[in-house]
C-alpha cells in the first residue's frame, strides 16, 4: 500500500517562508500593526524555540481583524475539567482489569483440590469480586457526570468519550459475569460430587433401616441427625452463595441497563460516521433555532416590557419632582 511523505518539502517551504517573513514584520512600514510590531522579532523567536514545549503561548503577530481582540493570547495545552474525570474513569477501568486477572487466578486456586477448607480462598474471591463491582459502579456513576448540556462541539466530544468508556465498562462487566458463572458452575459440580457420596451413604443407611427395624432405632436416629446437620450446613452455604449470585447479578444488570443506552450497537446506522456527522449538524442547527426562538420570546417577553415601562415611569416621576422643587 503506497504512501508518500511530503513533510520534508513542507518544512522546507515553511522555514523558507518564515525567514522571508521576519525581516518584513519589523520594518517601519508596518508600524500600523501597533505595539506588536516592535515586539515582532522576539515573539517569533519565542515561537520557534518553544516548538517542542507542550505549553506554548501564542501572541498575535498580526492584528488582521481588530474585532478579535477579545481572543488575545491563549494558552495551549490546558484541557477542560471533564478530561480529568474521563482519565479517572479510564484509570479505574484499568485497575478493574488488573483485579480481574487476580480474580481469575484466585478462582483457579479455589477450584483445585486442597487440604484446607478453602475458607480463605473464598474470602479473597469475595473481596476481589466486591472490589471489582465497586470499581465498576463508581466508574458508571462518574460516567453520568461526563454528560453535558447544550449542543456545542465540546459536548459531542464528551458524548463520544462517554460512549467509548461505556463500551469498555460493559465489556468488563460481561467478562466478570462470565467468570463468576463458570466458577460457580464448577464449584457446584465439585460440591455435588461430595454430595453424591453422602447420598450413597444415605441409601445404605436406609437399607440397613429396613433390615434391622427395632434394634437400630437409636443408631438410625443418630445417623439421621448427623446427616441432617450436614445437609443443613450445605443448604445454608448454598443459599448464601445463591444470595451472592443474585446480588451481583442485580448489580451488574443495573449497570448494564444504564450502559446499554450509551453503548453503540455495532453494524447499525448509529455506528456510521456520516450519520453521526449529519446528526451533529442537525442538532447544532436545532440548538441554534431554539436559542434564537428563546431570544425572541425573551425580547418580546412581558418582563422586558414591564421593566422598560417602570424605568420610564421612574424617570418621568423624577423629572416631575425636580420641576416641582425648581418651580416652588
Amino acid at each position: 500500500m503506497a504512501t508518500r511523505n511530503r513533510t520534508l518539502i513542507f518544512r522546507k517551504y515553511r522555514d523558507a517562508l518564515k525567514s522571508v517573513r521576519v525581516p518584513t514584520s519589523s520594518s517601519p512600514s508596518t508600524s500600523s500593526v501597533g505595539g506588536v510590531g516592535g515586539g515582532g522579532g522576539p515573539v517569533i523567536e519565542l515561537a520557534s524555540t518553544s516548538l517542542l514545549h507542550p505549553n506554548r503561548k501564542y501572541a498575535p503577530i498580526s492584528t488582521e481583524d481588530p474585532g478579535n481582540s477579545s481572543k488575545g493570547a491563549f494558552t495551549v495545552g490546558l484541557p477542560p475539567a471533564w478530561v480529568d474525570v474521563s482519565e479517572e474513569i479510564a484509570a479505574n477501568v484499568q485497575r478493574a482489569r488488573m483485579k480481574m486477572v487476580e480474580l481469575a487466578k484466585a478462582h483457579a486456586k479455589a477450584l483445585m483440590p486442597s487440604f484446607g477448607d478453602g475458607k480463605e480462598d473464598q474470602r479473597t474471591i469475595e473481596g476481589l469480586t466486591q472490589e471489582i463491582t465497586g470499581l465498576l459502579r463508581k466508574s458508571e456513576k462518574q460516567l453520568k457526570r461526563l454528560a453535558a448540556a447544550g449542543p456545542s462541539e465540546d459536548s459531542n466530544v464528551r458524548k463520544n468519550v462517554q460512549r467509548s468508556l461505556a463500551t469498555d465498562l460493559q465489556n468488563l462487566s460481561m467478562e466478570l459475569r462470565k467468570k463468576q458463572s463458570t466458577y460457580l458452575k464448577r464449584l457446584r459440580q465439585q460440591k455435588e460430587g461430595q454430595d453424591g457420596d453422602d447420598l450413597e451413604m444415605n441409601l445404605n443407611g436406609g437399607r440397613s433401616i429396613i433390615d434391622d427395624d427395632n434394634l437400630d432405632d437409636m443408631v438410625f436416629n443418630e445417623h439421621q441427625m448427623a446427616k441432617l446437620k450436614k445437609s443443613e450446613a450445605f443448604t445454608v452455604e448454598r443459599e448464601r452463595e445463591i444470595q451472592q449470585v443474585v446480588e451481583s447479578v442485580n448489580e451488574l444488570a443495573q449497570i448494564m441497563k444504564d450502559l446499554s443506552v450509551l453503548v453503540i450497537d455495532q453494524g447499525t446506522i448509529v455506528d456510521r460516521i456520516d450519520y453521526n456527522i449529519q446528526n451533529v449538524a442537525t442538532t447544532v442547527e436545532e440548538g441554534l433555532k431554539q436559542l434564537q426562538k428563546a431570544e425572541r420570546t425573551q425580547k418580546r417577553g412581558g418582563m422586558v416590557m414591564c421593566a422598560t415601562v417602570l424605568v420610564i415611569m421612574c424617570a418621568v416621576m423624577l423629572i416631575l419632582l425636580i420641576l416641582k422643587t425648581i418651580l416652588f
Partner: protein
Amino acid sequence: MVLVSAARDYVNRMLQDISGMKVLILDSQTVSIVSVVYSQSELLQKEVFLVELVDSISKSKESMSHLKAVYFLRPTLENIQHLRRQLANPRFGESHLFFSNMLKDTQIHILADSDEQEVVQQVQEYYADFVAIDPYHFTLNIPSNHIYMLPAVVDPPGLQQFCDRIVDGISTVFLALKRRPVIRYQRTSDIAKRIAQETSKLMYQQESGLFDFRRTEISPLLLIVDRRDDPVTPLLNQWTYQAMVHELIGIHDNKVDLSSTGKLPKDQQEVVLSSEQDAFFKANMYENFGDIGMSIKRMVDDFQQVAKSNQNIQTIEDMAKFVDSYPEYRKMHGNVSKHVTLVTEMSKIVGERRLMLVSEREQDLACNGGQVAAFEAVTNLLNNESVSDIDRLHLVMLYALRYEKESPVQLMQLFNKLASQSPKYKPGLVQFLLKQAGVDKRTGDLYGNRDLLNIARNMARGLKNCSKSMADSSSSCDAVVIPQPQDVVIFIVGGTTYEESRSVALQNASNSGTRFILGGSVVLNSKRFLKDLEEAQRIAKSSTNVV
C-alpha cells in the same frame, strides 16, 4: 477484501501513531470514503472523539487545544483554502494532514505559507480516493455523471473535471494495490480513450517514479469501457437482493433510506446494508428474491426461538444467562427487523407496480427473439392501466434498443403512445438514448452475450483492440495474445450496476486464477440512469439552441 482492506489500512495507519484525544476532519467526499470501511465505534477505540467536516468546522470558534487534529481531505482548491484559514487560526493542539491524492507543489507552498504557528506535524499522501462499497466493487460518487454523454465542446471544463476525478480515483486504486497496469480502452468511445490516455500519462510519465513498483509478475490490466455499450443492464428490473434494493429503494454508500416509505420506528428509518458487517446480508446479497424469503423466514424462526427462551426465565441461572446474552439478542433483533422491513417494502412495491409481469416482458425483450411478439407485448403493457409510467418508459426503451432498425413505423407508434399516456415523459428521451447508445454506437452483440466478464475477457485477450500499453511507446494493432493477467480492473465510465458487481463477485469466488475488480463513476439504478439521460438531453438541447 482487497479494496475494503486497503482503505481500512490507510485509516488505521493515519490514527495509530498519534496518541491522545483526536478529532478527525473530513470533507464531503472523504466522509463517504471513510464511512464505508470504518465504523464510529472503531474510531472511538482509536481515541477519535470528534468527527467534523472541514467546511463546517471553520464556522465554530471554540478552541479545543487538548485535541489533535487529523485531517483527511482530497487535495482540491476549496479544501486548501479551508486549510489555509484553519492553519492561520489554529483551534487544535497539533495538525496532521493526510491527503487522498497527489499534492501539487504550489499547494504545499500555500499550506506552508499559512502555517505561521507551526501546528502542522506531518503532511502525507495516503492514496484512498475511492469509495470501497464491496470487496471488489468501488465507486467515485461523481455528481455530474451525465457529462460523459455530451460532446466535449459543450462543457470543456466540466468534462475535464469529470475525467480528472476518474483518473484520480483509478490511479489510487492501483497505488493501493501497488501495481502499474497495462491499459486498454473501448475504441468506439471518445471519453474512454481520453481517460485511458490521461491515466497512462500520469502513471507512465508524470509520476512514473511513484508508480514504478518493480514487480516481476504479470502486470494487471485496466479496462476502460463506456456505459453506453450496454445501456440495457441499468434499465432492467433486478431480482437479486442487493441489486433489487438499489433498484426499488436505493442504496447510497451502503445505506438505505427508508424514511419515505411510511411509518417506521425511528431506528429503522435508515439502515446499513454492508456485507462486511452483516453476516446474513453477506450470505444472501446475491440470492434471488424467492430464496431470500426462505432465508428470512428461517432467520425469524431462529430469532423467535431465542426470544421465547429469553422470556422463559425460571431460575437464577436463566436470569444470569439472559443478562449475559442481552447484547447479542439486541443485535439479532435489530438485524432481523431490518431485513424484514426491507423485504416487506420491496414486496409492496413489486405488488403495486406489477413488477413480475413487467419484468417478464423486460427479460423477453432482452433475451428472446421475435420482434412482432415483442411489439405486441409492449403495446399490451402500455395499455395496461396498472403499469406505472416509469415502467412503460423502460419497456419502450428496451424495445427501441433492440428493434431499432426493424420496423421504424411501429417504433414511432410506440413513441407516440408513450408521449400521449405519460404526461411527465420528456419527449424525445428515447430517441436521445438511441442517439447515444444505439446499434451503431455499440460494439459487440449486446443481446447475444450481455455478460460483462466475457466482454472483459475478449478485451484482455487483445483480439480486437489496439494495444495502448505505454510500456513500449509504439501502438500495435495486431492480435497480440497477452498471457492471462492475475488482476483485472474494469472501470465503466457512466456507472456500474449491482448486477455487474454480482457477476464479478461470483466469478472471483469461483477461484479461476484471475481476480476482477469493478469500478464506476457512480452506481446506477434505472432512476439514476434516466436522470443522467434527461440531464444530458436538456443540456444538449440548450447548447444547440445557443449555437
